């Protein structure tokens, strides 16, 4: 009897321990509760205090002592005695604050999310592998490792991250690992490549070749050119150098381009949000109060936590630089040193092509190219799931690149196979660009640094203490014949392939223009006399004009003026369209909430401020209007892309009887006025419903409902925020995207002054006060004044804690 009782009791105890020591999936995953809740090692240990104490660490591979001073917002100021130690310490400190994020982002890049969350992520993972993300990262790694400087920089950075990973036990693991019940693996140089390629995917995957091909087939060339003109003529180009492009462009033997005539029934590919973009500008000393240039940058990205940026100050005998870094890549990406400052915005340009492939047979071992059957390469991709099971996928590669869609993956017509040519697959050495920019002294150094840069193409703004300002649109751009790259291409002929790239010195750039400022906001890169054909998914039409208008009209500029411009909520799009829209309404006939809406819109000052209700009514109206106009393009298949809002407004103004204004489902024939009235009623109804549900007035920030989301989409680690602005507005904050880093640098001879802020915090730990301490400041439009010093002693007054790293013998 006793033995049975003891046995049962022991069995229950051990069973309970086993259950609580492992993660389970009962509909939703539960962490290993015993480990997780253990107040000695579990999640409790991730709760941190505001006050952080000094620390000492022994690091294998370190050559000399490194001093890291944390300032009051946890920005690390690293003082190292040589560059290897500097990048090792950067890797170490970044991992210390952001390890989970770094690994998660590179797992996502490599298509390995299923290992963490399970089979639900398989489709995403396969998509990543099939786009050749790992292939791209491997190519990029090869060029990094071929350059001695880049190689030692990346090696040191990786060593630093691994030194931190090796120091971890369960207690010190980031809380996300504890929640999901897994552990970090060793960092590799490849992961640095994966991170950079993930950025390339976010920024340089814009294309609509398939949609344009379908549009060509359905609407014909004439209508297509009206709907999607190459040059909308809307914007103020980044570089206006009309008639002065003094070089001989590379000319390709001009074969007439055969336009495809087919409908492709592939599903529309995942698209980056149109709200992803950026602003940057620099004003010369002639326009500023101090007489020194001021440079500003705010990249607009999806707003997540932990934030995409990590602010860092790197100091060694060869460099003294500060700014935003990407956790997972060494050096500073957007920042300043003692002599120069630089920043980036995305350069809109079509850097993707799809080639229709003719395989010999279903085995896909050979494909036709100029009459010859060439062998394909097949990559077998293995996917591991969280539960230990695995899945194998075969990706076929041609010399163009991989064939992402086929009968096993999102393809539904086995004859339609398209190879994916993407600039980010090519070997590239961005890391050298940032190494050199971080050490740049003048405009010449900036130019030489950018010569190494190929992808993702960016508009690099520049300013120096010596007084120069400049802009250069840098990337590796294929030389294109007119209209090439807009549609699907014939993969059986090599004549359709990229033959040459625009030489670096012929890229769009200028220095010290007479208007005394340079700026970019994802608009058309150059005036139309630029001798190369330029095409992209779309170019920004509004922000750029507002920025240039403001920069042209203000003088005696202070850093505060430019912070105000970064936070400018003026809605140029609304100012240009709303009066026209309202003129179609007969205000005497409007009743009830429609009459109220009319009044709110009529009296609106076009600012998308936090409290504005006019902004909400305008946005609701637009969201009803655009799908009503482009209802011809609503179906999932064939995939089509709407013309830009700018063009849509032009059609309303110039072609009110355009056939697209007719709503397909109705017997009547509608014109612009009809659908404006109809969408007005719809938009007002949406707001009425919103008001009823939320029981409050539709103030813009409430209606927009800004959301900064944890990378795991874990609500408890995410925040709703109230902030003004919107896409197409200088303060480009839409619900999920916005200025991910705001930087203002005044390049004064007496010493650089710099301010910055981002919507997040330096710590990636949701249990740290520094996880989101910068978010409210960002939301209120405030900036943090950076401490930029050349030695740890000078940090005394602004330091919070010191972390001293010494070599481990």
């Amino acid at each position, binding site marked *: *009897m*006793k033995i049975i*009782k*003891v046995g049962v*009791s*022991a069995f*229950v*105890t051990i069973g*309970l*321990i086993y259950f*609580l*020591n492992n993660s389970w999936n009962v509909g939703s995953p539960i962490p290993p*509760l*015993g*480990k997780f*809740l*253990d*107040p*000695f*090692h*579990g*999640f*409790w*240990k*991730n*709760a*941190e*205090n505001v006050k952080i104490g000094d620390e000492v660490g022994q690091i294998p591979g370190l050559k000399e002592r490194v001093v890291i001073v944390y300032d009051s917002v946890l920005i690390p100021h690293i003082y190292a005695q040589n560059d290897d130690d500097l990048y090792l310490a950067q890797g170490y400190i970044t991992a210390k604050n952001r390890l989970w994020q770094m690994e998660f982002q590179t797992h996502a890049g490599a298509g390995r999310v299923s290992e963490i969350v399970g089979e639900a992520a398989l489709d995403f993972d396969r998509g990543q592998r099939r786009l050749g993300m790992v292939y791209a990262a491997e190519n990029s790694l090869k060029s990094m490792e071929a350059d001695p400087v880049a190689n030692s920089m990346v090696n040191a950075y990786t060593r630093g991250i691994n030194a931190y990973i090796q120091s971890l036990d*369960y207690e010190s693991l980031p*809380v996300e690992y504890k*929640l999901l019940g897994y552990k970090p693996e060793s960092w590799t140089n490849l992961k640095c490549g994966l991170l950079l390629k993930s950025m390339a995917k976010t920024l340089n995957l814009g294309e609509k070749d398939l949609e344009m091909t379908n549009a060509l087939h359905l609407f014909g060339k004439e209508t297509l050119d009206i709907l999607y003109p190459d040059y909308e003529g809307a914007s103020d180009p980044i570089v206006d150098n009309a008639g002065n492009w003094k070089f001989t462009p590379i000319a390709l033997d001009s074969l007439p381009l055969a336009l495809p005539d087919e409908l492709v029934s592939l599903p529309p590919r995942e698209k980056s949000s149109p709200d992803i973009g950026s602003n940057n500008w620099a004003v010369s000393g002639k326009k500023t109060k101090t007489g020194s240039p001021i440079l500003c940058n705010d990249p607009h990205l999806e707003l997540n936590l932990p934030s995409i940026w990590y602010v860092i100050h790197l100091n060694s005998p060869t460099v003294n630089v500060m700014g935003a870094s990407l956790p997972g890549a060494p050096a500073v990406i957007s920042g300043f040193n003692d002599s120069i400052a630089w920043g980036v915005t995305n350069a809109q340009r079509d850097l993707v092509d799809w080639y229709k492939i003719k395989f010999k047979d279903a085995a896909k071992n050979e494909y036709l190219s100029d009459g010859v059957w060439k062998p394909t390469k097949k990559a077998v991709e293995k996917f591991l799931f969280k539960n230990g099971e695995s899945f194998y996928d075969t990706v076929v590669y041609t010399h163009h690149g991989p064939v992402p869609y086929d009968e096993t993956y999102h393809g539904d017509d086995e004859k339609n196979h398209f190879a994916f040519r993407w600039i980010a697959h090519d070997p590239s050495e961005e890391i050298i660009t940032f190494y050199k920019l971080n050490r740049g002294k003048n405009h010449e150094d900036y130019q030489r640094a950018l010569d190494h840069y190929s992808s993702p193409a960016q508009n690099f703004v520049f300013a120096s203490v010596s007084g120069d300002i400049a802009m250069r649109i840098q990337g590796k751009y294929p030389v294109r014949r007119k209209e090439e790259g807009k549609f699907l291409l014939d993969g059986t002929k090599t004549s359709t392939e990229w033959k040459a790239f625009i030489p670096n010195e012929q890229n769009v750039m200028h220095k010290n223009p007479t208007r005394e400022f340079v700026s970019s906001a994802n608009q058309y890169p150059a005036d139309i006399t630029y001798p190369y054909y330029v095409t992209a998914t779309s170019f920004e039409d509004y922000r750029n004009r507002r920025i240039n208008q403001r920069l042209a009209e203000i003088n005696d500029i202070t850093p505060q003026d430019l912070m105000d411009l970064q936070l400018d909520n003026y809605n140029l799009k609304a100012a240009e369209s709303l009066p026209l829209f309202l003129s179609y309404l007969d205000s005497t006939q409007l009743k009830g909430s429609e009459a109220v809406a009319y009044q709110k819109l009529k009296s609106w000052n076009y600012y998308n401020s936090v409290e504005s209700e006019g902004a909400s009514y305008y946005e609701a109206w637009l969201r009803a209007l655009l799908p009503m106009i482009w209802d011809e393009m609503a179906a999932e298949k064939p995939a089509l892309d709407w013309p830009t809002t700018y063009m849509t407004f032009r059609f309303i103004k110039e072609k009110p009887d355009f056939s697209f204004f007719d709503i397909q489902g109705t017997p009547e024939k509608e014109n612009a006025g009809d659908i404006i009235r109809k969408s007005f009623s719809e938009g007002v109804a949406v707001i009425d419903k919103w008001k009823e549900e939320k029981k409050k007035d539709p103030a813009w920030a409430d209606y927009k409902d800004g959301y900064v989301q944890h990378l795991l989409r*874990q*609500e*408890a*680690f995410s925040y709703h925020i109230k902030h003004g602005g919107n896409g197409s507005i200088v303060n480009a904050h839409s619900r999920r995207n916005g200025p991910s880093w705001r930087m203002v640098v005044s390049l004064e001879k007496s010493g650089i002054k710099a301010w910055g802020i981002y919507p997040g915090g330096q710590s990636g730990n*949701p*249990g*740290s*006060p520094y996880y989101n301490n910068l978010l409210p400041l960002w939301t209120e439009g405030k900036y943090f004044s950076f401490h930029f010093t050349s030695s740890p002693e000078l940090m005394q007054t602004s330091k919070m804690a010191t972390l001293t790293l010494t070599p481990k013998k």
Partner: protein
Amino acid sequence: MKFVYQVIITAVGAFVLQTFLPWWTGTIVAAGVGYYIGNNGLLSFFGGFLGIGLLWLGMALFIDVSTQSILTEKINRILPLNSILLTTLVGGLVGGFAALTGALLSKKQ
């Protein structure tokens, strides 16, 4: 009195062991104390439950208060039960069953 001893000795022993070793090592203490003190089954269960449960509760409360609930609030939104309560329950249950096993083993029959 033996009950109070059981609770205190379990808590102190588990505190020492768990500071250095994984979470489940507290059960060894609870089982050992249950065996030597030799309370009857039900009492021993509660002794072990309170020993580990109160220890975990105390530790969790201390962290919660000293960090102004910064993480507790967030984890509460993820877990189906309040995390302090759940921590106490999980520690208590494991401690209770371990102590019960120890007590049953020590019974002379």
